[in-house]
């Protein structure tokens, strides 16, 4: 068991010159569930895109003990399930089945196992029976669940989610929080939803202007009004 | 509703199977080249990017503005796509748009789709691209050149698509060229104004808010080959203008073949029951004529492309 994320001194500048990460350090232990918070533009999404090699900045990113390079890229992408903020970006296939089958198909699995993985992962998110539907016809909450299923189908060791509860109504949000709690994977969740942070994550990382500015037990950070204030956050 | 803005989507039945087949062969050739060129241009991003941008053109056609008496102006989009992404990428984008409009919404026929792709995709893309770059090279790099270039390119691209459609209708005996040509060209000279204004306004928005987005077209493949494709198009139109097609007779390609004396045998053939109708079996002299026309067209196109490639190579090695 070494389902870890280990980031050391990560820097990233976008091609248009905008500096997004200025030396990020973080370590996530196997089985840990961690919240990543910070104001808009803090670099959260940029950081997440480094965790499976979509972006490659300067510094060291190790996932499951392996550094990310051209050789390990395929394995890393299978090990880290990245769920994007907008499910309309994540669900790019013309049907739900095609979308959930996409990852397993590119992992080179045979048809029987692909079928099985699709069923299992839709089951895990409580969405059995929508295989033939067009993603566009799903509701917001259903889309989020199917988006999570698309990465679960790859049986990742680590789940990375960007804003999973954004734009959901209270009941759908509650369902999703319960789902996240049930999933066994190591988890890093970027969010503005401080209620979600308070009730689901023991540890929280605060990031601002491309740097980690706080990292510790959620309860302690949420009690630190000066810290929250200075980084545009608010206790629930 | 999301309906076709410009009545250029030819339905099935308006072109003869023969004319349709020629369209498919030309269109497939262009699509095959476009697939290779955009793969080089965009790599792994090719498929998602072309697909999403095709959806953009489709959606952009839903943005309209009222003209008068309940009619409204919209975008066709071929020139805009070509100016931003290059002519080959635009060819693919418009192919996807036209295919979906036909398959999903029956906007444009299946058998005639080859010509629809050429008229609204290939011809508009290449005309738009070449005219835009020419105007810009005349006026230099400034906002006026961008707006003027975009306007003229988009207007002309719609004109060329409409003129080509008129020729195809004439070749099929659906409308005499003497009527179809001025009618199509005249109506689309007006429709093209909307296309021109929308295109240049879209370009100037990009220039202001994201100038990098306009650099793709500057470096896209086909920027030298495009001029040869456009020359071939212009030559074909001129040749067609002086052909017997341009007579007032509405019988199209078959009539032309007949006039040239090729169809006399066909008229006596047992399978030709109605006087001006034959099934194109192999060995039929009519088919030979058509094949000759086809091969000729392909040769012109091939030569143009070859020339384009040769000069490109010479220029790159000369750099």
């Amino acid at each position: 068991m070494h389902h870890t994320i280990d980031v050391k001194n990560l820097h990233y500048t976008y091609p248009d010159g905008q500096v997004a990460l200025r030396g990020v350090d973080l370590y996530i232990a196997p089985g840990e569930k961690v919240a990543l918070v910070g104001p808009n533009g803090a670099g959260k999404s940029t950081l997440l895109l480094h965790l499976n090699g979509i972006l490659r900045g300067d510094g060291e990113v190790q996932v499951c003990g392996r550094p990310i390079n051209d050789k390990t890229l395929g394995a890393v992408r299978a090990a880290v399930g990245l769920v994007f903020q907008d499910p309309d970006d994540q669900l790019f296939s013309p049907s739900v089945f095609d979308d959930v089958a996409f990852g397993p198909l590119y992992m080179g699995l045979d048809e029987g196992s692909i079928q099985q993985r699709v069923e299992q992962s839709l089951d895990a998110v409580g969405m059995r029976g929508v295989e033939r539907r067009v993603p566009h016809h799903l509701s917001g909450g259903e889309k989020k669940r199917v988006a999570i299923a698309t990465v679960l189908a790859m049986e990742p060791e680590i789940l990375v989610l960007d804003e999973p509860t954004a734009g959901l109504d209270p009941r759908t949000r509650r369902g999703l929080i319960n789902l996240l709690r049930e999933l066994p994977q190591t988890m890093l969740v970027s969010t503005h939803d401080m209620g979600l942070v308070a009730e689901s994550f023991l540890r929280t990382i605060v990031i601002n202007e491309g740097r980690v500015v706080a990292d510790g037990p959620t309860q302690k950070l949420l009690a630190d009004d000066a810290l929250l204030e200075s980084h545009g956050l608010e206790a629930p | 509703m999301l309906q076709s803005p410009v009545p250029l989507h030819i339905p099935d039945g308006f072109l003869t199977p023969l004319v349709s087949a020629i369209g498919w062969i030309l269109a497939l050739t262009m699509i095959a080249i476009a697939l290779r060129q955009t793969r080089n241009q965009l790599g792994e991003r090719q498929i998602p990017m072309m697909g999403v941008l095709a959806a953009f053109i489709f959606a952009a056609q839903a943005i309209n503005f009222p003209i008068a008496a309940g009619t409204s102006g919209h975008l066709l989009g071929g020139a805009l796509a070509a100016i931003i992404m290059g002519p080959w990428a635009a060819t693919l984008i418009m192919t996807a748009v036209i295919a979906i409009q036909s398959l999903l919404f029956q906007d444009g026929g299946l058998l005639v789709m080859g010509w629809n792709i050429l008229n609204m995709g290939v011809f508009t893309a290449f005309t738009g691209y070449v005219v835009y770059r020419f105007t810009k090279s005349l006026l230099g790099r400034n906002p006026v050149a961008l707006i003027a270039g975009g306007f003229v390119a988009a207007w002309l691209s719609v004109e060329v698509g409409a003129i080509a459609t008129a020729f195809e209708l004439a070749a099929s005996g659906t409308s005499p060229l003497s009527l179809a040509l001025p009618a199509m060209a005249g109506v689309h000279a007006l429709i093209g104004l909307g296309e021109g204004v929308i295109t240049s306004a879209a370009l100037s928005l990009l220039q202001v808010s994201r100038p990098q987005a306009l650099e793709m077209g500057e470096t896209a493949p086909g920027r030298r080959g495009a001029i040869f494709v456009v020359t071939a198009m212009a030559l074909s139109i001129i040749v067609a203008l002086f052909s017997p097609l341009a007579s007032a007779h509405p019988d199209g390609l078959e009539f032309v073949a007949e006039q040239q004396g090729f169809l006399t045998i066909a008229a006596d053939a047992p399978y030709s029951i109605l006087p001006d109708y034959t099934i194109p079996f192999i060995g039929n002299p009519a088919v030979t004529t058509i094949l000759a026309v086809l091969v000729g067209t392909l040769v012109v196109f091939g030569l143009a492309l070859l020339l384009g490639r040769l000069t490109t190579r010479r220029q790159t090695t000369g750099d």
Partner: protein
Amino acid sequence: MHISFLDPFQARDSLVHRLDPRVKAVLTLLYVLAVSLTPQGAWAAFAAFLALVLTAAWAAKLGWSYSLRRSFIALPFMLAALAVPFVTPGPAIYEVPVLGWTVSEPGFVRFVTILLRAWLAVQAAILLTATTPFTDLLWSLRNLRIPQALVAMLGFMYRYLFVLADEALRMNRARAARSPRIVGAPRPPIGWQARVAGSMVGSLFLRALERSERVYAAMASRGYDGEVRALVRFQMLGLDWIVLLGVSLSLVAILTLTLVI
């Protein structure tokens, strides 16, 4: 408001819905070809083709008039053939009052034939999309040797068509919400309105471009390597072969009979 109502697929449980999508695609194309090859004025043949398409609509449990009611989309293009009755040489059967233009008999026959061909072909295409989910149609295109990359692009376009069209409609509504019409006040000039539409098109393009980048990232996250891959979906069953042969033979039979008699 979503534009998903534009999806023409009609979910039913019928023989036609269960057919292999390749069979339906090929038969539709053959039907359009047969209709286009049918000689001018062969009314009996056109009647037989109409009967065929109505039967198919009935067998698909769409109601026999389903395709009929939706088939008028090609009508505006009729204008393009409007000159034919007047310019085709032949005995005059009608003279337009005042103008003195004459409709010739062969011209009239040719005109009606063109409209019939278009009308029947559209009905076949309507039935195809009403009985075949678009993903199945895409799969059959890929299987029928259309280039994989092109089919994959069509898949992406289909997926994002609705998303981007929603965005476009929201922009249209936002514009309408700020476009009050005050009685007596002059309306903004057309050129200005077209420029507004152009700016909307420009910003929609930027959104689409950004989205395509995010979509590519989502694909790469799940292992996409530039190759198109797809699963086998359908196997041709006995019934598929029977329908394929049966319908294509009847198309050939109608055509042959028309040409021989």
